């Protein structure tokens, strides 16, 4: 045991809250269930901040590398002679950073939901699921080994499933939950096979051993090959497939927009700030293995990230459901993080991309949670998700408006907000690695600014719609989290990430490269300006643009028809061309054979049974014929 043993409480408190609130659901009247959940998570948040303070400040000797500490570990199951599954807690820079992200956003969402979910049927159930999610996510980020991560990976998947399907009486909500679960499960198949390969090549699940530059993982890079790539590279690519599923990377992204069927606080917590970045965290966790052992796999990560960021940004341009715009924007931003990891090297300034990715993960969690919670306040006020039913809301929702504007400026990369700093580092890292990737990201930065301000103007500017009642600002319990997150969005860019979270634990100096920062600010401003021109007041320009690019517009609006492709594969191919024939084959061929054997027996016995008729004359006749036959045989043949 060591001085971090208390960190065990961080995941365990939400777990016990889940058990308690889940079991006593019917008996917890009013908001009691929510209060228990919030207090429990408050304690966990406090402990997380204390851990961060202790790890980064009081326990750290200046100038030395940050080390990873195993706070706690038990044996859970022996698999093979070498492989044992442990459960434990690993404290290192990225896990502590994630602790802060997860606990902060989760705590804000817990508070916010006290207002947002007020009066919903199953209020306590909502909080028990939130606690289950918090437990699983904290267990995931604190995992000491790959298998523990997989266990909690599945658990966050199921919590997400339960929360998306929270309004289970709505068929669309359940089908979205189902889709999310099955698509990510399919990706997890890749993850699991990746774990199988990796653990059998290296003989361990343990992160500390895996990421050791002299350890068995990286030294196996030159080992057995399959189809031109080393086994290690295959394992890393397959593990990335799992990460891509959770993080909604193309083409496994289709579940994320539908997941917006869940309550908005859930979207903010799971589908914006925490669970969807688990894929990034997974790659970051194994980063030394990727960088030193499988550069090809890392290249795959970079290109998938870059493509997704562009693809999602183009779709976000035309969506009209405000939560879906935010969902595509999340995909696009996670693409940034993936790309940043993909272009990074290991150690020192080479590891700029690694640092930038984690930095962006951190700032993104703040501003994207803020955007979603702000959208929730808007939906709360107008009872609709559709942009066309909103307008002129800045008068009615002053706090939401201000915080939403801050978040939009942050994501657009305007200084001095935090998004500027983290995005700038990513662009610098991309610029030094691959100019094409840099070009894509530069373009995406412009698109992002444009669609975010399209969203902003459509909600808060323009003229009033016919609201059922006058929209009113959300209660304090909802606006306070907005203000706290706005504070985080503004100032988290000032954190010295290049000293705290680096690929090898050692800090390095980094400063803003104005040669790259200035154009990136410029393209952000251009994006905002174009959006202002088109959407600040109602005019005919958007329709004209849509008409000019009508094909592109339709493809973007229909999300490039990826959903239809999936529907074709699942409904047509799997259900009709595999499952139906299997069922038919089983009924008619396999079972038919068995029944056929039975019928054959019945048929034979039916024909034979005539011999046992019980009529003496027949027996006598057969007997006499037999005797005659035998006599003839004996007489003539012998």
């Amino acid at each position: 045991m060591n001085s971090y043993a208390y960190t065990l409480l961080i995941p365990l408190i939400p777990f016990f809250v889940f058990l308690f609130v889940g079991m006593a659901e019917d008996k917890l009247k009013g908001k009691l269930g929510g209060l228990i959940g919030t207090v429990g998570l408050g304690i966990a948040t406090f402990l997380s901040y204390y851990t961060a303070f202790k790890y980064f400040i009081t326990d750290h000797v200046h100038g030395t590398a940050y080390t990873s500490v195993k706070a706690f570990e038990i044996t859970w199951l022996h698999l093979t002679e070498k492989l044992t599954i442990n459960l434990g807690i690993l404290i290192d820079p990225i896990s502590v950073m994630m602790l802060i992200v997860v606990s902060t956003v989760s705590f804000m969402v817990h508070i916010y939901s006290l207002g947002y979910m007020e009066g919903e049927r199953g209020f306590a159930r909502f909080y028990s699921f939130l606690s289950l999610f918090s437990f699983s996510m904290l267990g995931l980020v604190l995992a000491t080994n790959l298998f523990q991560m997989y266990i909690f990976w599945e658990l966050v998947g199921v919590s997400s499933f339960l929360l998306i399907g929270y309004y289970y009486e709505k068929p669309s909500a359940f089908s979205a939950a189902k889709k999310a679960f099955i698509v990510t499960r399919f990706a997890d198949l890749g993850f699991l096979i990746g774990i199988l390969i990796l653990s059998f090549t290296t003989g361990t699940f343990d992160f500390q051993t895996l990421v050791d530059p002299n350890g068995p993982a990286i030294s196996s890079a030159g080992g057995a090959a399959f189809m031109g790539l080393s086994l290690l590279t295959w394992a890393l690519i397959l593990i990335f497939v799992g990460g891509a599923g959770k993080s909604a990377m193309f083409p496994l992204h289709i579940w994320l927009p539908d997941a917006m069927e869940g309550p908005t606080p859930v979207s903010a917590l799971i589908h914006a700030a925490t669970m969807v970045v688990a894929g990034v965290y997974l790659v970051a966790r194994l980063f030394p293995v990727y960088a030193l052992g499988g550069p090809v796999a890392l290249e795959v990560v970079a290109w998938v990230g870059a493509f997704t960021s562009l693809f999602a940004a183009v779709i976000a341009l035309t969506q009209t459901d405000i939560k879906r715009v935010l969902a595509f924007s999340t995909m696009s931003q996670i693409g940034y993080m993936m790309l940043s990891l993909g272009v990074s090297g290991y150690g020192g300034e080479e590891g700029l991309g690694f640092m930038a990715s984690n930095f962006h993960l951190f700032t993104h969690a703040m501003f994207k949670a803020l955007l979603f919670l702000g959208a929730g306040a808007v939906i709360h006020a107008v009872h609709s998700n559709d942009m066309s039913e909103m307008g002129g809301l800045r008068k009615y929702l002053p706090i939401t408006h201000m915080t939403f504007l801050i978040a939009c400026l942050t994501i657009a990369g305007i200084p001095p907000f935090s998004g500027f700093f983290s995005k700038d580092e990513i662009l610098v890292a991309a610029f030094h690695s691959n100019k094409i990737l840099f070009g894509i990201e530069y373009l995406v930065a412009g698109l992002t600014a444009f669609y975010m301000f399209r969203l902003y103007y459509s909600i808060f500017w323009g003229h009033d719609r016919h609201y059922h009642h006058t929209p009113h600002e959300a209660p304090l319990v909802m606006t306070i989290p907005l203000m706290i997150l706005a504070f985080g969005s503004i100032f988290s860019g000032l954190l010295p990430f290049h000293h705290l979270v680096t690929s090898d634990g050692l800090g390095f100096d980094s400063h803003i490269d104005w040669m790259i920062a200035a154009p990136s600010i410029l393209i952000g401003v251009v994006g905002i300006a174009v959006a202002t021109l088109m959407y600040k007041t109602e005019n005919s320009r958007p329709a004209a643009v849509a008409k000019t690019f009508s094909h592109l517009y339709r493809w973007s609006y229909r999300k490039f028809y990826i959903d239809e492709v999936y529907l074709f594969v699942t409904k047509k191919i799997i259900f009709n061309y595999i499952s139906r024939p299997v069922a038919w084959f089983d009924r008619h061929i396999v079972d038919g054979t068995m029944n056929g054997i039975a019928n054959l027996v019945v048929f034979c016995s039916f024909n034979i049974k005539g011999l046992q008729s019980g009529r003496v004359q027949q027996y006598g006749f057969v007997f006499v014929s037999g005797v005659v036959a035998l006599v003839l045989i004996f007489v003539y043949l012998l």
Partner: protein
Amino acid sequence: MNILTLFVVIPVLTVAGILFTKDLKQSRMVSAIGMTVQLILSAILVYLYVTERQAGNMAPMLFTFDALWFPALNIHYAVGVDGISVAMIALTGVVVFAGIFASWRMEFLSREFFISLILLATGVFGFFISLDLFTMFLFYEIAVIPMYLLIGIWGSGPKEYSAMKLTLMLMGGSALLMVGILGIYFFSVPEGGQLTFNVLEIAKHQIPIEMQRFLFPFTFVGFGILGALFPFHTWSPDGHASAPTAVSMLHAGVLMKLGGYGAFRVAIYLMPEAAQEQAWIFIILTSISVVYGAFGAIFQKDLKYINAYSSVSHCGLVLFAVLMMNQTAFTGAVIQMISHGLMTALFFALIGMIYGRTHTRMINEMGGLMKVIPFLGVVYVIAGLASLGLPGFSGFVAEMTIFFGAYEHVDLFHRVATIVAVSSIVITAVYILRVVGTLLMGPITDKHFLHLEDANWYERLSTITLVIGITFIGVAPLWLSDMINFSLAPLIEKLATVQLPGM
């Protein structure tokens, strides 16, 4: 008296007790008491077994007892248990206990029903404690015969057809098995001396390889039919669909496990050479079972059919793991047997309870039940999540152990088979979520459903017992896996002496 013999004596006493009862109330009370004692006894056995092992008793079988009962053929009543049989006995104890409470309202011929049910349980318990092949076979037949009556009399739908089909197919399996067992008997002591049916005695010698090649398929397929091996699984969907709730629970929960257990204890243990040679054929068949059952389940509309096909898939995984023939996979196979036994019993219990309320098992005729029967709904979701292998439930532990065991083989054939089996985790998710979605979620489709009542105390007792079993293994698997692991040592040693042909 030997503790193991009690496992046969108590059910027999219970049956005798039921004979003197007059009505449902009395007979169910006697059964419940008898099976509660049996459950407690199973728990005691697990405890005694673990303490004995910790005390350093390294004998392959504990609590052994031996009595000769048919000298002419040297047939013994020989009993003894290792970690595997202890685990299976505990499983049986739990499932039978839950099954009694699931048939709390069996109005029709209740006395006879409980007698048949407990007779069936006697056979299963006897099978798991036996070390003598003939006695084992005898107990197996004791378990199969009441099945015919239970389905034929208390069943639903085309019950005569289903009962006949199930019994005939299982009897066909028995016939193959009989050939196998007699063959093993006649070659049990190749060096000369008295022939024996005792598994431990036979294992000391090597059955001639030519005979093994001939006998292994008989034995393996004989047990495989019981374990729903493709293409001999078709008794299972029809049989389960017609069987009353408790019978489905017992049948899928424990009787099908006799197949896996036998394949492992008799076929592989006594004939390892032939097993190594012929495994590939059966690996192909079981890989088909795993995926085929899952795809078959996607298309079904009757809840019991869905669960029956799902059982084909899950039991396929048991036999698949048994054929992988290494320590990890064997451990996984046993955990999967226990896990599937608990899960499928839970499923059938729930299906029976839902059917008792809605009077239909067609999923497209139901919807939105979560709102009216939340307890059963939540337990159904738990069972579903356990079945699709969510961590925290027993299915996950079993599947992971099997996959890791299977992956230990480095050749391409085994790798491909492993990946095929692994892919079932996705297909399982598809059919489970489809059922959960149609059955429980969405709006209520039929206004009659608005007046349904949620679970009674005995239904809660029955389901919660099983849920506790599933979660307990899922959260703390180490003791179980170590208990099984340790008992595998003699088998692994025997396998290690086998020359692997061309591997």
